[in-house]
């Protein structure tokens, strides 16, 4: 079953452990991005591995492919020509526009690691989760967010 990285906004405290873990695993370049919300909070932005990804449609050289079984959308660094079409096409803005080693940076859900993505493992507050479609529906993730401040969000939830 296809699994995705999901962020529980109620728990994220903006510590950026996820970014550190991703950066360490991908030769110093984080593939999980951060939204800086008016300087008040950092929220991680991970690739959604869409069912019908626009990045695949935009890629002129078919460097991005989707595995129907696992739902994983991967980019081949051998085929990628670094045109950044995927970065512009992504509706969530999670593909980093600046090129690294002349290819775009795209989350691969740490497919070299058996226990799932490193960002999820690193998350110090348990806000990032690696869940299947059915689990995501049950979770009501992010539905309780009432404040911009991480700690007050948790307070509201408790």
């Amino acid at each position, binding site marked *: 079953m296809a699994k995705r990285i999901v962020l529980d906004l109620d728990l994220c405290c903006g*510590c950026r*452990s996820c*970014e550190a873990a991703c950066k*360490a695993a991908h030769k110093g370049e984080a593939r999980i991005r951060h939204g800086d919300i008016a300087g008040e909070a950092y929220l991680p932005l991970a690739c959604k591995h869409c069912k019908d990804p626009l990045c695949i449609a935009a890629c002129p050289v078919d460097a991005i492919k989707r595995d129907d079984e696992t739902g994983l959308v991967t980019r081949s660094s051998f085929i990628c020509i670094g045109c950044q079409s995927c970065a512009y096409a992504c509706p969530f803005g999670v593909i980093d526009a600046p090129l690294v080693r002349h290819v775009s940076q795209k989350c691969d859900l740490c*497919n070299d*690691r058996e226990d799932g993505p490193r960002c999820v493992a690193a998350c*110090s*507050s348990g806000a990032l989760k690696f869940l299947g479609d059915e689990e995501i529906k049950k979770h009501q993730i992010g539905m309780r967010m009432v404040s911009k401040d991480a700690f007050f969000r948790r*307070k509201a939830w408790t």
Partner: protein
Amino acid sequence: MKKVDPTFTTVKKTVCPFCSFGCELGVVFDDFGIRGVEYIKDGSSEGRLCPRGSAAALYLNHPLRLSMPIKNGKTLDWTKLGKDLKNVFDKPRKVAVTFDRNLTIEDYQSIISFCKATGVENIASTYFEPEALLREFFGKPFSVDEINKARMVLVVGDPFNQTPMFSKTLIEWKLSNRKNRLVVVDTMKTPTATFASDFLKCRVDTEPLLLLALAQENIEGLDVPGVTGVAASTIADISKGLHKDKDALIFVCLSFAHTYDSMLLVEGLKRLSAYTGKKIIPFVEFPGFEGNQRFGAIIEKIKKKKIKYLVNFGELFPFYYPQLGKILRRVSIFATAPIKHKDHTVLPVALNLEKQGTILTNRGEQALSGDINPASGARMVNEILDLVKQTKIGDGAVALPEVKVDLAERAKKIVARIKTPKKKKSLRLLGEKIAYSFLGLFGEEKLKINPLDAEALGIKPTDTVSLKSKHGEADFRIRLTTDVDPGIAAIAAETPEVKGLFEYEVADSMVNFVPTSVEIWRKG
């Protein structure tokens, strides 16, 4: 799906050395070197790590990792370096051996035994953060379960940024019961302060005075509420509360502020512990070691030309304190460091994650079981010492001469500093610790200033500013926030460019950083 073949990679369980909390982590390595870190689910960190632990592999495989000794930027052979070191230790009275962090207890004992065998008399710690003094509070191990019994917790500083893995426990404790009272003492609004029951926002540099007041120490002629900005009734109430709750705890997390009188701060903590009968639990970057004298005494000897050579073991000094450069230029420096530096003679050294040995953490002494071949060219401390003389590890004990802290005298100094009229348009610089600001690996940090100051200085939110102190100048992007009071500028003090901006003074042979006046203006 591609998977790593487990037959080629090995995971070695060890302890994270990037703060004193002692989280367990796994180092993943193969024949070609360290590949990354792994999260130990049944370990003390419950399978999670903070940004520093997660980025450990980045530091171990840093692009500037040193593989050969260098002298003033040029590579040097280990044999040649061994000869140079032998020549230095032929004149032991002219040598000072110093150390900072990234050392195991065994490394420290080897250094002390080596000093005794070679006749070196000047031994000091160059780890200027107050943690070198806070080591004495590490006596009793701390268990996370202790916090669940407490109804009141006093936190001096910000554990969210200092020890993120503890911060989670603290938040959960606070939210688990409405009656749990969290008191935070700090000079700016931090993530920990946002969920405090009582936030005692004191003026920069006045934390030690507030701690003494909480310990009911009366210093003659000192108006504590007037100086600290915290009401007398609040101080009395919290002091009483700490005394009353038999399970109350006091946490200290004060790295990198670069403002307060460390000796007075530790004296304040000691007296608070004695008055309330409560345990002090310090969370630090690294519990420093003691020499037989303080570094201020070494500085005096360098000025008097009694010391010609300085040999430092660790990873930061002297590169991280450029403001001391003027004095240190008078001596030849040999320093171990994992990363390239263009000045002095630099020796590549292994990091604690690559070593076997013991480190002191809040959980007591924990064994490092890295036992990994360090990065190419890096040597263990013992191997470096063996270039000069082979010694056996002894008990390695040296003691610092006791200094009687004159509370009234030191308090007077703080009050005088606060009352000194500021220059027009100048701000006070405050260092802060940011969880993910790890040795500059995560890019530049923004300078925090209050919107009122920004308006007065004609600075807009998107501007880059130049900041000038007595010791240097640097450019920063800014972040306007009311977390800092008007008149204060705060920046993550992680890199030499920032650390070098702070002013220092030597009092009772102790190097202290003091509140630094800076001028800020919009760049270009």
